[in-house]
């Protein structure tokens, strides 16, 4: 029944999906945190930048961003992110695009977490002489992260599924392989089901695991 799978590197394709997800998650966690820091910080220029970034990026379709990294950054500006093989270049461009996009959502999730930290704690921290970066790093962000593990999990799951857009610029992840198989094989529904199952295998455990983590790290008030 599953003969049609023969000759295709299904695991390899999903492995690329995992890698795309991993690097983009890491990147958007870092960049999203920086954006959130800018948005709550005391410097007006940074606040404005953070707000503008989130507003613009959230409202552009991901496909447009991903295609732009390839057509705009690479083919027009020649930015290849230090790689020389096409597959590596496209992979890195996709990570860049996914990071740029997802970090806007990480920033917003994190900002709602920052708002759950009572202002009084920030004032107490100022009163003992901590600087703004110290207060953010030691008092605010740790509590903010703990309160948004749930929302961040949703962002991560969305990101996992969004990696399929990378197929648009030829990254050999799961969706690209699926397209190829649909063209070549007769079992359309089975092919789709296999890939759907593959994604569920990735996202379901993530959701369960992080759901437990969320309960464990919640700050008691």
């Amino acid at each position: 029944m599953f003969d049609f799978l023969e000759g295709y590197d299904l695991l390899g394709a999903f492995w690329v999906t995992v890698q795309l997800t991993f690097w983009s998650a890491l990147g958007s966690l870092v960049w999203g945190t920086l954006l959130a820091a800018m948005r709550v910080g005391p410097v007006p220029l940074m606040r404005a930048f953070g707000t503008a970034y989130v507003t613009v990026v959230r409202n552009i379709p991901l496909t447009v961003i991903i295609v732009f990294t390839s057509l705009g950054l690479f083919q027009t500006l020649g930015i290849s992110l230090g790689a020389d093989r096409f597959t590596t270049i496209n992979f890195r461009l996709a990570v860049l695009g996914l990071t740029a996009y997802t970090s806007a959502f990480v920033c917003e999730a994190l900002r709602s977490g920052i708002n759950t930290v009572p202002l009084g704690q920030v004032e107490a921290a100022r009163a003992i002489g901590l600087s703004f970066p110290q207060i953010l790093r030691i008092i605010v962000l740790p509590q903010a992260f703990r309160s948004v593990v749930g929302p961040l999990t949703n962002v991560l799951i969305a990101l996992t599924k969004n990696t399929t857009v990378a197929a648009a610029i030829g990254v050999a992840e799961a969706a690209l392989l699926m397209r190829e198989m649909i063209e070549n094989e007769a079992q359309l529904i089975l092919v789709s089901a296999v890939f759907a199952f593959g994604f569920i295998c990735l996202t379901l455990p993530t959701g369960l695991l992080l759901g437990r983590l969320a309960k464990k790290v919640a700050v008691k008030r």
Partner: protein
Amino acid sequence: MPVPEGSVPDDGDALVVLRGVDKHFGTLHVLQSIDLTIRRGEVVVVIGPSGSGKSTLCRAINRLETIDGGEIRIDGRPLPAEGRELARLRADVGMVFQSFNLFAHKTVLDNVTLGQIKVRKKDRRSAEERARSLLDRVGVAAQADKYPAQLSGGQQQRVAIARALAMDPKVMLFDEPTSALDPEMINEVLEVMRQLARDGMTMVVVTHEMGFARSAANRVVFMADGRIVEETTPEEFFGNPRSERAKDFLSKILHH
């Protein structure tokens, strides 16, 4: 401003000096040319009706609130505008809030060591040693490894006092430290504050606790509508208030 004899500020020993301090919130003039001098070792109780500007006064002294005019000096130095310099000065001014404001994700011990390590740059061992002795002093040594949410309000406020003391502040500000507490816990906090006063700490205390004012204060400052209306000894203030505002205020809180 009526300044009775005996409490005329001796500027040689002045620790906190406010000169013509003005503060607005929009059109609201919350501090109106406040002059106040607090000498080393002095305990000043600030009292007054709700909205008179007591909290704003406290917050202005360690610059949690900016001021629009006048000058505030701590130990002879004017309050710096921003940055590192300001942070250092803030560390010299301890502050205790009505709502405790302990760091919820840190243990009691970490609450008290944090400032010592990150601001005073002490090593962890000596910071912990100092923290434990302070927690012992305020009577919550047994709670060192718990989280704030596991403590009673009175215990949390005593931890907050220990956290402020850990910075070795020159002066401690208390903004209604017992107002959020259940009645049976008020005394344990006031007792810690009395002990501090006896040990010679310079203190500014916003409170409506008459008992504390009578037993521990050197001076009572009565505020109304953003001004200091009366400034005198506790005996004078409670026994023989001069202004109508003070008489009115006292009759209200004493008959409640």
